[in-house]
């Protein structure tokens, strides 16, 4: 097993311990993970290799207010390749004040099942 080439080395970001994970592919094509000190490391590494997910954050102008920007993020992570398509959707938004923290600005953005939400209150 350990003589199969290392596909990737990555740091688990689920908690501050930050285990260094080594991911290999064995003869049968299964992913093998070493270095994790808890059972959350395996699914994290497999997802990170096969289909990494990310949250994203940006800020957009708000109409009808002096403090002109509202910061936004996603309610949960999306497949990494969705980042730029979602950013393009967000760039079209021009919400009207007031905007509340947690307010959904785009529901189920591009069918990903996650929402674009405001992360600050602008009145």
């Amino acid at each position: 097993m350990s003589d199969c080439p290392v596909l990737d080395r990555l740091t688990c970001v689920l908690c501050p311990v930050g285990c260094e994970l080594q991911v290999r592919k064995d003869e049968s094509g299964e992913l093998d993970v070493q270095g994790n000190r808890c059972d959350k490391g395996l699914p994290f590494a497999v997802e990170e290799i096969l289909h990494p997910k990310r949250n994203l954050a940006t800020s957009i102008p708000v109409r009808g207010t002096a403090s002109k920007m509202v910061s936004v993020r996603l309610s949960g992570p999306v497949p990494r390749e969705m980042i730029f398509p979602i950013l393009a959707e967000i760039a079209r938004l021009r919400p009207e004040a007031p905007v509340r923290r947690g307010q959904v600005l785009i529901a189920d953005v591009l069918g990903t099942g996650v929402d674009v939400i405001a992360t600050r209150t602008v009145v």
Partner: protein
Amino acid sequence: MEANETHDVVVIGGGPAGLAAALGARRAGAGKVLLVERDRTLGGILNQCVHDGFGLFLYNEAISGPEYAERLIDDVVREPIKVETGAMVLDITPDRVLRINSRSGYRLVRAGAVVLAMGCRERTREMIEIPGTRPAGVFTAGSAQNLVNLQNLRIGNEAVILGSGDIGLIMARRLVFEGVAVKGVFEILSWASGLERNVRQCLMDFGIPLELRSTVVEIRGRDRVESVVVAKVDDKLMPIPGSESVIPCDTLLLSVGLIPENELSKRAGVALSPFTGGAVVDERFMTSVSGVFSCGNVLHIHDVADWASFEGFAAGESAARYAAGERPAGATVRITAGPNVKYALPQLVTAGTAGVEWNFRVGRPLRNVQVVVKGKATEKVYARKKFGRLLPTELQKIKVRPAVEEDLEVSCHE
């Protein structure tokens, strides 16, 4: 000095540490609490940190900086805490009279206890002395973050980032989102100074190269940056002649370190540590000036806002008890940084105290580390903890359960 008003606890700075300090003071029974913030709004630097990853320890979920700030602010405004924004503390005397300039004018405020929570500043081009011309287009990463996230300004088209601090890494991704070409991140050390997670999510995800052991040796351009010259460095961090290359760009971002903003502390006579750039404190976060406490980035640089807040809660509670008249025996036990340790904090502890938790930071990346807290006179081992890996970017903790009666040393052994 005749004061115009009196408070039990005055907190200076309304960021993650100061907001928590005001709450901590109330929880520990302080009646009158004043929170003074220089900016127009509370929240400090959290307001421009729109990325997520805040709150994992304080709220058990990953939220953005503005959300983290709003939650703390919601708690503060529910309490009878007097909040003053757009107000500047000009001076503190050693007997805790503050000169405050605010929208309503200048006045003197007497404090039962003071909590310093002024945060930190970024190192600038001048402080690291990059040669070259002085064109527009050179920004610290944090000021670029403010311009992009809060003021909706486009800062350039092609950027180079010097230094791999977390804000620089976060801004690399942020600029990519805004359509700016990020040509590379250059780091003089042989390791990234930001968190591993940010190297992965902010650089590798977008194919931005991270060049270690290299730096910017010249800025070129007359009115606006036209290019920068980068070079490899040797073991003494000096540029290697012949390794230079020219990178065309119109923007240079600097993420080359943070410095605790201690001008006020110095005026109050607070003793500072050369290792942290912040105050020397005891286990209650009290400085060398009786009744003056310190927490957050003005005390030492944190990599996670939550820890700045936890320090704030603790410092605020200590300040409230001091204001109520509590006077512990005085900290006499000294803890010093031994081999491989950059600093350990608190630096002083009251003799006989048990269960003190120390923050420490290593000087270079270490693997399979044993951290040892040892008595200087007796060589007695007070605490021991193993880590698979320790990085200079990560603030770590070690708890000493037994009562401490002698000077201690924290050391790390591979």
